[in-house]
């Protein structure tokens, strides 16, 4: 792998792999809670954060991380308080993000391709400081998700049941949203805010086609996501195409392959089902 001799490619690889693991980890909960658009929404807020960073002359990625996490907490608060208008409230949050981004971008001196980098990612220009921020975020997200995994799974399955089981659903939901925000900002450096949500959703959707359990689906999604990032980087380097695009296109290709596999698999699954049903039937007799 001679292409990874270059410093910038090594940094791209590290940033890419951390993103590849973190995105499906957040994404699987986003998908099963049917909030696939939340990643895009948080991206809008991150956009405002980055541009705000340029206005203030402070490290934009860090400002984006802070602003997006606060935005995520605020969204969760509104979602909890005003269940009925939650959808509209979310939309208003997101539009405000874009509007502020536009305002900030005309106030600040944004470097040459800064705007393009935010929108479409600029993994090849990841700096040493970025790596620290990305790695730190990655460790935090992994740790928090490990700790809250079971609680989030129960909440995703049924929020009322989770609540009755003694889980503080408001707090847990807020913590999850803040982790999602952090991952959006990390992913923004890699594939850009327009595509970050796709890395949360597509590998999970591909894994779901194989119809496995929750942990197995997550493991598959992470594998698909890692393959997408590695494949995308190699393609990007060799074909001289922007990596954000090649990474996501690779993910889509994997999705399509799994779609075909799932179709071919139909027979296999049906026979598996049948044998399982026979087991249940014999089980019934014993238990009643």
């Amino acid at each position, binding site marked *: 792998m001679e292409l990874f001799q270059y410093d910038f490619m090594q940094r791209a690889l590290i940033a890419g792999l951390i993103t590849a693991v973190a995105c499906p980890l957040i994404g699987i909960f986003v998908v099963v809670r049917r909030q696939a658009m939340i990643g895009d929404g948080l991206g809008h807020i991150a956009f405002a954060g980055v541009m705000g960073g340029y206005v203030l002359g402070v490290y934009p990625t860090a400002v984006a991380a802070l602003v997006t996490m606060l935005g995520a907490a605020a969204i969760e608060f509104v979602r909890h308080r005003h269940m009925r208008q939650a959808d509209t409230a979310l939309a208003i949050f997101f539009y405000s993000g874009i509007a502020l981004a536009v305002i900030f971008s005309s106030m600040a001196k944004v470097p040459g391709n800064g705007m393009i980098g935010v929108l479409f990612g600029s993994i090849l220009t990841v700096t040493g400081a970025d790596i620290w921020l990305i790695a730190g975020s990655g460790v935090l997200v992994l740790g928090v998700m490990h700790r809250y995994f079971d609680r989030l*799974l129960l909440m995703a399955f049924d929020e009322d049941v989770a609540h009755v089981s003694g889980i503080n659903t408001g707090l847990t939901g807020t913590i999850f949203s803040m982790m999602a925000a952090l991952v959006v900002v990390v992913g923004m450096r890699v594939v850009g805010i327009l595509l970050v949500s796709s890395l949360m959703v597509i590998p999970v959707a591909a894994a779901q086609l194989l119809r496995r359990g929750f942990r197995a689906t997550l493991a598959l999604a992470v594998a698909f996501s890692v393959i997408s990032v590695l494949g995308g980087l190699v393609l990007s380097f060799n074909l001289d195409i922007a990596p954000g695009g090649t990474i996501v296109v690779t993910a889509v290709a994997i999705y399509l392959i799994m779609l075909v596999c799932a179709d071919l698999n139909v027979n296999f699954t049906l026979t598996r089902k049948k044998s399982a049903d026979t087991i249940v039937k014999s089980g019934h007799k014993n238990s009643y």
Partner: protein
Amino acid sequence: MFDIAIKNVSFAYGDNKVLSDLSLTVAAGDFVAIVGPNGAGKSTILKLIAGLVRPADGVVQVGGKVVRDACYSCEIGYVPQHYANNTAGFPATVEEIVALGLTSSGSKRVKREGARHIVKHMLDLVGLEGLNHRLVGELSGGQQQRVMVARALAANPGLLLLDEPTSGVDYETGTKLYGLLGEINRNLGITIVAVSHDIDKVTRFANKVACINNGLCFYGDSTEFRHNHAGAPHFFPYQKV
């Protein structure tokens, strides 16, 4: 094992008054069937007991403690109505769902080996042995209901609240499920409150029946209810005036 005391409770969703001045006590170890027409407030009563909604007036006590917030009541097993929205396409195996019963506030986590043992035991109990690795969304309605009961039981609850656990379940499976709940109630001493429209089936296994129709209009032994009710299982003769 918990007793329940609902004292002079009123509840409304906005302007929609659902319950007014309802009082109902359930002794520890009872199996109570709540029956009544659509919209009578049966699900609301379960939610009040679970602490998911709060009474506008009056108090709800479970095990002698006032229910303030669902968070406190880790020992209540709750099987909601219409959970099937969630199971369709949900990527989780039967084993994973049942193991969620062991997920509480995190304070009393069970080690993996122990968890597997408990899950297996619960699946045996509801007659789903061997289905551990099947996706829950790919089971039949009756099997899914039993998975949900197994999940609730895994938490080792003192009180089990079930909201229409046999809606969309065939006659035989429904009867078996209530039979199973009856056994759980007797053998494990768990207090059970089950809402159901399968009046004939549930009243066969429950020892008490509460009929809700504009308030509590009948509350007594199931044998008495069945006697009054003979031949007209789908008609609500009781109407509070």
